[in-house]
């Protein structure tokens, strides 16, 4: 399709996804909203872009900011954007991409383990975590909650550095 009067090319699904890859989570600014798994779908109807976004936790205070950031990023290219909040199915840490996990670790946050076995933490069994600084698995939990609802606080008993862990849900 040709560009419109304002010189804007019509949106494409792939183009919108690449834009979203540039929007980082405000609280973990190394990982994009796509790597975090909270963008569930992108649809284009005519020239209107609709993006399905799911919150990590029901009360995550960053949800509104993230939605505003996504909207701003897409609208900066001249596209009218609707953000649609979806809660079903509920977000799970399994949706964090492999690339996202690597970035979390490099940033100093132990990424969540993947798969159903990892959910043992919900039943009270502590996961074995490796320290993002020295990779030692000799770590202990300091606090069930960290600086945000999605993280817990741990300490490495080898290098003594405290670190955050992205909890499995």
């Amino acid at each position, binding site marked *: 399709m040709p560009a419109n009067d304002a010189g804007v090319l019509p949106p494409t699904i792939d183009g919108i996804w690449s834009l979203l890859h540039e929007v980082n989570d405000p609280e973990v600014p190394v990982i994009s909203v796509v790597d975090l798994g909270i963008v569930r779908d992108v649809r284009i109807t005519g020239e209107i872009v609709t993006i399905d976004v799911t*919150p990590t*936790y029901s*009360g995550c205070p960053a949800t509104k900011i993230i939605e505003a950031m996504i909207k701003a990023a897409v609208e900066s290219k001249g596209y009218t954007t609707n953000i649609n909040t979806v809660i079903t199915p509920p977000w799970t840490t399994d949706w964090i991409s492999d690339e996202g996990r690597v970035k979390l670790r490099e940033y100093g946050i132990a990424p969540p383990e993947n798969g159903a076995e990892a959910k043992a933490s919900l*039943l*009270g069994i502590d996961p074995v975590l490796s320290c993002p600084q020295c990779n030692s698995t000799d770590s202990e939990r300091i606090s069930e909650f960290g600086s945000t609802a999605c993280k817990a606080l741990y300490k490495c008993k080898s290098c003594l550095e405290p670190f955050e862990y992205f909890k499995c849900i």
Partner: protein
Amino acid sequence: MFTRATEYGVTDNALFEYALGLGDTALVLGQRMAEWLGKAPSMELDIAASNFSLDLVGQAQLFLEYAGEVEGEGRSDDDLSFLRDAMFFRNLLIVEQPNRDWGVTMVRHFLVSSFLVLQYEALASSKDERLAGIAAKALKEMQYHRRFSREWVVRLACGTDEGMKRITRGFDTLWRFTGEMFELADFEANLVNGGIAVDVRSLEAPWTTAVDDLLAECGIEKPTALQMITGRYLGHHTEHLGHILCDMQYMQRAYPGAKW
């Protein structure tokens, strides 16, 4: 907002009342946990309490938003939270009981989160897709609450005599409010038959097992109550709810429509 000023009991909109009950319980408990902000016994607990509060207020927002839609009178989740008086709240009486100390708060949180986990597990397969979706999301969060509060009850009860005294006080003062969790109102029975609401009576046995298990681990004798205190669906509350609302609703009452 006083459209039913002569009648504090349930309206004939069963689904509205049910969603309100779910939302108000989460909201009031969330407000109670927020009261710890800045004065919990340690930094870690301060953060935990505010995260609990966030989870619960987030759940309340989802339930109350739905309640407003079902009611169809244009009330938002904020309107329902900030512009209703105590007799129109449908929360379980146990969640409005005072925090007192960390021990009592953790006992309350264990008793309630153990119930909510069971309730949300069942509600996640409701025929009402909105309620099922919210419950499936909230369930994951409440499992953490249950685990955390259980650990604290054990830690305090099995630690010092002082800790045991406070945990025991929690069970003794709160026990009379636990019966209400398993009381099925007439309007709820209709929703249960339609596959929408949870038959809370069926949750009492698994809840009791979980509580007995904890009491045994702590060596605490099972509390008794002369009478279970109930009344949320009649608009009857303990004196504490009014005080909570004075705090929680102050801004909207003093400066109607204020936003930030």
